[in-house]
Structure formats: C-alpha cells, structure tokens
C-alpha cells in the first residue's frame, strides 16, 4: 500500500511539472502580449521592450520554464538582472522558494496572492461540501425509499430546479431575499475562522449554500439511483431472507454499497471546488482563487495562471490518490496485495 502511494505521488508530481510547461506553451502560442498589460496604457515601444526583457518574456518558452522551475526550488529575483540588483536593489523583488512567479498586475508574489485567497475558497468549499453531501445523501435516500410517491417526485423535481437555474441567479436571489430583504443572515463577507468562527460561518453561508444547491441536485439524483440499484441486488434479498429488520438492511447492506461510488465523485468535486468557484465568488464579491483566476485571465497575467494551474491540479491529483486509497479501504475487492 505504501509503495503504491509513493508511486502515485511521484507520477502525480511528474504530471504537475508537465502541466506547467503545457500551460506556458499554450499561453505563448496565443496572440497575447503580457508585457503590454504589465507596462500600462501609455507605453512607448521602447518601454514595452524593456518590460518584456524585465519579465524575461523575450526568452524562449523552455528557458522561461526552466527559470520558473528553478524559482519553485530555490526562489528567484524579478527582474533577473545582476546589474540592476547591484545599482538599484530597491527595484528588484525577491521571491522566496517556492516561488510561483511575480504578478505585475497585483505587484505581489503569486505565492503570497494564492496564500491570501486560498483560505476563502477553502472555507467556501468545505461548508458547501458539508451542506451538499448531507442534503444530497439525505434527500436521495428519502427519495429512493419513497420511490414513485409524491415525496420522491417533489425531491427530484426541486433539485432539478436548482440544477437548471444558473448559479449567479440562485446566488443573487439568495443575496437579495435572504440577506437584504428578510435579513436572516448578515451581508455575506469573508471573516477568517480564527477571528470569529460564528461570523465566519454566517458570513459565507449564502455563497456556500448557492454552491451546495447546485451540487446537491446531482447528488440527490445519484444517491437515489445508487440506493435503488443496491436495493434490487441479490444480497439485499439474502439479507431479507435472513430475517434482518428493514432498518438494518438499509443502514448496513444497502447504504454501504450505494455510498461507495459517491466517495469518488465527492472527492473529485471537492478538489475541483478548492480551486475556486468563479461565478459564486464573483456574485458575493469573495476574493478567493476564483476571483484571482478571473483577474489573471483578463490581465494576461501568466504567473498567476500558471500558479493557479499548479494549485488546482495538485488538488485534483491529490484527491485522486486519496479517493483510490479510500476505495481500497471501503471495497475489499480492490485491495492491493
């Protein structure tokens, strides 16, 4: 098992490295001029050329990538200019390892930017995750047990509505009514957990709910399908024939089988959400990773984009490894020998 995890981790790291290269190549293959954005609106061609050189955008992609990888391992300076560093040390920004680059737009190190934004996305993702898993599984099981009744139809129908409406609509709707009109929760804002756990929760409950309602719809339908499928399995008939009470059959035999496939999905969805929820964050003005990604994309800010790719990809890769290991724990048939 240990060897398996090590092997998976190594292949995950290789994948990450390749992804950074691919992202850079994609970026430079487009008709983008990051140096113009970085320089500003009124810039002479000479100034643009200087900016280009300062960021190293004049070098071949592979060289830039080499510098980037070096930055991750031992840090680097912006601009990479020994003479300037000697003459005007105040003009050179040092970026300590692990350095994901320097954003001219935010005039900050990407690592710092991600460090500030990540807790916001993390908080949102965790609260949303708890809400949607609880709600999705609960309503999914109820719908399955009441299959064909008005309760089942109601649950499936309502979840479909939340699934069909765009997130920004649900988000704005909740914002407008729950927060502003009925004043049930304070205006959504991010308050660090360490500062006040209660305000942290009430501040992000609406955006988290918006996300949860969207994901929940899928989980309700899938839980319902998995439970129904499991209930028609032969081993459930065996359990009945043994004389087990219905409740025990449901909790021990049906649920165990029905929840296994949910683990995979839940893990991957959570990992994806950790990389930021762009629309929801925008609607509620949360400056998480999603907001950062939007800013980076609209300003051709390559360092942030590459940094976000790394972060998001590591979550997905990590989640995959965790899910696979969890699977081996849950399902004895896939245990590695």
């Amino acid at each position: 098992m240990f060897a398996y995890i090590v092997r998976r981790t190594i292949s995950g790291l290789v994948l990450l490295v390749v992804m950074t290269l691919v992202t850079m190549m994609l970026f430079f293959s487009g008709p983008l001029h990051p140096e113009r954005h970085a320089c500003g609106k009124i810039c002479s061609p000479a100034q643009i050329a200087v900016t280009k050189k300062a960021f190293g955008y004049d070098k071949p992609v592979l060289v830039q990538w080499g510098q980037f990888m070096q930055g991750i391992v031992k840090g680097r300076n912006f601009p990479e200019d020994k003479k300037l560093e000697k003459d005007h040390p105040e003009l050179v920004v040092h970026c300590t390892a692990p350095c994901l680059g320097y954003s001219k737009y935010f005039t900050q190190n990407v690592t710092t930017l991600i460090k500030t934004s990540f807790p916001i996305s993390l908080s949102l993702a965790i609260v949303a995750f708890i809400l949607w898993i609880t709600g999705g599984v609960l309503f999914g099981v109820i719908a399955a047990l009441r299959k064909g009744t008005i309760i089942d139809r109601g649950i499936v129908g309502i979840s479909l509505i939340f699934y069909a409406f765009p997130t920004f609509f649900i988000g704005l709707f909740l914002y407008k009514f729950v927060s502003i009109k009925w004043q049930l929760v304070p205006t959504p804002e991010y308050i660090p957990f360490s500062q006040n756990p209660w305000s942290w929760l009430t501040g992000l409950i609406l955006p988290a709910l918006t996300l949860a309602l969207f994901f929940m719809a899928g989980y309700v339908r899938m839980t319902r399908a998995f439970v129904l499928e499991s209930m028609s399995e032969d081993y459930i008939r065996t359990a009945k024939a043994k004389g087990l009470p219905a409740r025990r059959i449901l909790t021990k035999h049906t649920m165990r089988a029905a929840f296994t496939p949910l683990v995979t999905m839940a893990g991957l969805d959570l990992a994806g959400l950790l990389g930021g929820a762009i629309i929801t964050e925008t609607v509620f003005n949360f400056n998480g990773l999603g907001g950062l990604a939007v800013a980076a994309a609209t300003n051709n800010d390559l360092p942030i984009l590459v940094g976000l790719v790394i972060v998001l990809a590591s979550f997905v890769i990590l989640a995959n490894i965790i899910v696979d290991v969890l699977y081996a724990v849950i399902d004895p048939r896939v245990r590695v020998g």
Partner: protein
Amino acid sequence: MTTTTNADVLLSVRDLKVHFPTMDGIVKATDGLSFDLAKGTTLGIVGESGSGKSVSSSAILGLHRGTNAIVSGEILLDGEDLLQLNDEQMRRRRGQDVAMIFQDPLSAMHPYYTVGNQIGEAYLVHNDVSKKAARTRSIEMLDRVGIPQPDRRVDDYPHQFSGGMRQRAMIAMALMNDPGLLIADEPTTALDVTVQAQILDLLQDLQREFNSAIIIITHDLGVVAEMADDVLVMYAGRAVEYGPCKEILTHPEMPYTWGLLSSVPDVQGDTDARLIPIPGSPPSLLSPPKGCAFHPRCVHRDKVPGDLCFTELPDLTPARSGGSHVKRCHLPNPDEVYRVEVLPEIAPDLVEETP
C-alpha cells in the same frame, strides 16, 4: 391432492396465488398452487424459466411483502398461516424457521462484508448472543459444510471463496438457526458439474442430520432424480403434474413433463440418441393461452377429442397409474401415448423392460 399421507406435515400450501399488477394488466406468476411437504422430506419443483417456481417459493418466505405483489391463498407452516402474520412476525420466522439459498452465491453475498460477518448476522438477529458467540457458531457451521480451515476462512470476503465454497457458505448461513424448512432456489445452476454433485450430497447429508424439509427448485431433472421425494412440475404458474418422484420419472402423464424428460441428456444412453427440445417458448404470464396453457407447444393435442385443449383448462386429476400422482391434461390415455410414442424416442433401451 396430497401425496404425503404422513401425519407430520410441515408445510402445506393451498391455492397460492401471486399476482403482479402492471400497466398492461395482471401478471399471474403463480395461479393456484397447492402442495404438502412432510418433515425431513424433499420436494422438487421443476419448470422452465418464468414458470413461477421462484416466485412461489419467495412467497413462502414472504419476500413479496412491501412490493406491489398480491399474494393470496394459504401457506401453513406447522399449522400457522404465514400469510396472516404481520410483517414483524414474518421477519422473525425468516431465517429462523424457513431459510433460503439462492442460485448465484456470488451476487447473493454482500461484497463488502466478510463471510463470517454475513453468516453470523443470521445467528445474531434471531438469538440474543454476543458477536463472539456468533463468530464461534459461524466457524462451527463453516466446518460442518466442509470449508477447510474455517477459523481462518471466516474472515475472508466472498470474492476470496470459490464458487462451490460460496454456495457452501450460503448453506451454512441458511442452516445457522436449524430451520425446519430450507428452500434451495436452483442451488447448483451457477456451479461446475463436479461441484454440483458435492453440493447436492452436502444438502442430503445435512438434511439427514438436521431433519429439515427441503424444497429444491430446479430445471434439472437430474437434480430432482437424486434429491426429491416428491416432484411438482410447474407450467405457466400452475402445477401440471405432481406426485412421488419415482412415479413422475417413470410414468409421466403430462406432455410437458415428457418434454422435460426428452431434453435431459443420458450419459449412459445411446450416443445416437437425440435431445428433443420442447418446441416454442414459455407463454406470457400476462395473457396466458386459453384452455390448457401448454396447448400451443403440445404435439399431442390432436389426440384429444374436440377442441378441449384450446377452450378448457384441465383440472388436476388422478393419474392412470393411481396413487397420489395427479396431472393436468385432457389426454384420455396418456400412459399409452407415453409408452408407445414418447419412450421409444427418448430411451429406446427402456422400452423392452416396460411391460
């Protein structure tokens, strides 16, 4: 109607009907089935797929409760009508007084729990004992059904068992509480031929030891010949022939039974002998044929005067061979037809011996 003259009747099924209402109408999976079973004896229920064998036996266990099936009639176990019990009372009897083993032991066991866990569960639910006691009992039963190293194998998962061992484990699970009645629904169909024989031997051994009555559901007349005291042949949800095993196998009087016998290969028989399939396929239980349900496939229907086969459902009447053997057929002289037309085709070597 009864073949068991014995006083100690364990199970008595009277006019059992299991109907499933569907969008297209009522599916009569079992339509008026009656039989008796004495303690320690074996009844073989034979028929094609879809003839209502499994549905009838599931009804005995009350497995149709909670579905939309309509079950009527009487199922008397030790004199008590199981259909009158409430769900909780029925649950208590399942696994305790009546147990069941299924066709495919791999899908019949939960893949995520150890064999010991699943077997022990059957004991725990009906007895107020500790988990440890249940485990000890599981090991004991696994040993009894012939699993080597039961104290180690008890912690294995079903996928680590072979097919035959899984079916042994299922038998252990069923016999955990020493039930008076064991229903085996095609217990050997999913197994290798060599393993089949072992499982049947095991069932017979255990039957002698525990004195359980067994209902064995099968489409394999070989299994019936080896195991059963009585045989019930089912077609389209009804009994078409019922009687002592020996009688049915030697003097069958219903063309469907003849068809079943013709389609059994005979290992010792003539290599030139051909297997004769029953033409056609089983009827829809939604709208079974009028008259005798078997008439569309029956090659002997012309021997019946008039159009009786097409219009009148024959009653179960005593067979010509007498005794408790009954059959559902309009043929006036089935014993002659069998002797003259059927037997020479399926077992030419037997013709001379038959008087």
